[in-house]
């Protein structure tokens, strides 16, 4: 039991950190430009595939740097030549644009790398156990992933709070026009933030690819969950996105790990549900993919502005 709790917590935190790496970029882009980037998870997928292809030539570590840079550059190009053009037609048009982009990226990935999963693995020496607890190994790679994520967030925090660019970004979040009037190039700032957010998503892909399997469906699996994170955390709130990421990561991991059915849970609370009935028979593990959406609906009913959001969406 203790074993399950410890490992689920570790895996849940790892998953939550990956989610936050995606949702932090998405939240930054959203609060700055008012557009929810539907293709965000597609950039995450591109990160994994780029790292796979680059890694075959350069090895894992250079790919860890190069792939996110490449994804970020691609994101900046998308903003400069696509999104900026569509911006004049309003937010719905922007959302439609990113939706179409996700569609096209998914197809291109299938075209370039095939419809089945590619063999993107971490280097062999990182598959060794970092520590062994109750006879279960925890690989070095997972430890490295957690380390990279935490380093990333410290860097993000430093960038936003302690640097001049961060000051401009924070100012542009609330008073975009004023920042423009003061002579800063706000469109270029937008491009930078969009590219940076995409690079973060790419980084999540590079380190998440070996853990979650690199296949063309990976964007469609994770994309909706990242949106749920952003809404549950409160639209535009980085802190909220952080808590929501960890919350959803932990909930989903625990649902997978716990070996119980709906009937077990309900009956433990005193109800009397047929354990072999249609509803009672469902195991919590099969419910796991649904938990983010159940959480979303609950949040919407009881706290529409999200965990930390200041405004109702």
């Amino acid at each position: 039991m203790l074993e399950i709790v410890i490992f689920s917590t570790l895996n849940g935190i790892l998953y939550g950190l990956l989610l936050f790496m995606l949702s932090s970029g998405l939240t930054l882009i959203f609060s700055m430009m008012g557009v929810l980037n539907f293709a965000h998870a597609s950039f995450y997928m591109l990160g994994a595939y780029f790292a796979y292809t680059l890694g075959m030539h350069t090895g894992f570590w250079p790919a860890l740097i190069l792939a996110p840079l490449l994804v970020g550059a691609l994101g900046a190009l998308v903003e400069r030549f696509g999104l900026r053009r569509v911006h004049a037609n309003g937010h719905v048009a922007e959302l439609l644009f990113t939706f179409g982009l996700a569609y096209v990226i998914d197809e291109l990935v299938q075209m370039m790398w095939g419809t089945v999963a590619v063999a993107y693995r971490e280097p062999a020496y990182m598959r060794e156990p970092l520590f062994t607890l109750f006879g279960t190994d925890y690989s070095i790679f997972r430890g490295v992933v957690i380390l990279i994520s935490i380093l990333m967030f410290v860097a993000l925090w430093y960038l936003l709070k302690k640097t001049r660019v961060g000051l401009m970004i924070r100012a542009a979040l609330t008073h975009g026009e004023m920042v423009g009037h003061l002579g800063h190039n706000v469109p270029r700032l937008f491009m930078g933030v969009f590219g940076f957010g995409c690079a973060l998503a790419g980084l999540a892909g590079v380190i998440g690819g070996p853990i979650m399997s690199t296949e063309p469906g990976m964007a469609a699996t994770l994309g909706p969950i990242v949106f749920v994170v952003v809404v549950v955390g409160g639209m535009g709130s980085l802190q909220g996105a952080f808590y929501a990421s960890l919350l959803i990561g932990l909930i989903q991991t625990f649902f997978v790990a716990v070996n119980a059915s709906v009937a077990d849970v309900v009956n433990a609370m005193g109800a009397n549900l047929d354990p072999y009935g249609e509803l009672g028979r469902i195991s919590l593990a099969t419910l796991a993919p649904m938990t983010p959406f159940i959480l979303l609906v609950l949040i919407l009913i009881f706290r529409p502005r999200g965990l930390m959001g200041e405004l109702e969406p």
Partner: protein
Amino acid sequence: MSQDISAAMQRSKSRPSLRGLVPWVVFAAVLLLLPFVFQGNSTAFTLLNVIGINIVFALSYNMLLGQGGMLSFGHAVFFGLGSYAAMHAMIAIDDASYAGEGFWAHVPVVGMPVIGMIAGGLVALVLGWPFCRRAGTAFAMITLGLGEMVAAAGQMFPSLFGGEAGIYGNRMVGPQWFGLELAQSADVYWFMAFWTFLAVFAMWAFTRTPLGRMSNAVRDNPDRLQFIGYQPRNIRFMIFIASGSFGGLAGGMAAVNYEIITPEALGLIPSGLALLMAAVGGLGVFYGPIVGAIVVTLMNSMLSDYTDASILYVGLVFLSIVMFAPRGLGGGIEQVRVAWRDGDLGRRLPGWLTGTLAVGLIIVGMVVLVEMMFQATHGDDEFAQVLGMEFDAAALWGWLAAAVLVALGVVIKRATNKLREDQA
């Protein structure tokens, strides 16, 4: 001011006399004539039936997005659940007609879209209220979550949704109406034509009701609407229900057509299809989604005969329409129609034609690029074939030719835009 309004009302009242009927007569005539054009061609009828379903689906979606300003990523929930309800009804008819008694023994399969419509409307009624608080991005995300949740639930309750394999029924059961046996796709066509016409007319009539007008108001300026004393949320909720009903109606049509339904029909892919069709056809014009449904359905089914990258092309078409022609194909048709009506066509046509030429060149260039990329990464045949010509991805000239085509198109487009600006 009030005189202006009453004068405008007078005009709009006097207009739908005879000229307003023309499009409907043409529509009905086309529906009646199509079977004689395609007589004996069962593939064509199969395609026509799918187009009919998609027209209703896309139009019902546009009630939300185009007319109500609510971007939804979960419209397939209503389509799928409507379809499931109709399928269960068909199974009940099948069972009852063996016994020869009971309520279901007297229900014709022809009426299944009504069942779908009721189911779709009920689902929207039950689910809609918490979602209609806000439009815009929040609504989009919530409907996305709703769609994912219902699709996941579809896998979880096999007795209702049939699990991965779905459930299937038989449309040739129960009482026959109008002598329709519904055996072959040519037979089903009449069923489709009837319901498509009826649904299109009903949805057009909806735009004419006060609620239909209010839905435009809630799209354009919800704050002002609130000042006047309406509840935007109530109006959104009512549009949501109406749109869900018609989505369910399309689902009922689909149940009769395919005789099988799987939980995949509830998911993001069919929801995205509705969005794709509506946006390609144009959100601002009533008939836009009809055009979009026809074009996208034809592209989906016919392109796959010629290329392995057909879905990519649909995506690229969607992307270019969002970027370069936000009013969609329907908006383009409307522009030509207005110019024709104002006698302006002669002056504007040359610019449009060169613009079309430019776009055509860019498209051909892009197609060559995509096909060569596909061939280079897959290498199943030696050459990529476009318009009967063979392009070798290993040789440089193919890539050059594609680049030249695209560049030429861009240059002509630039020149046309310049010319138009000078004229204006």
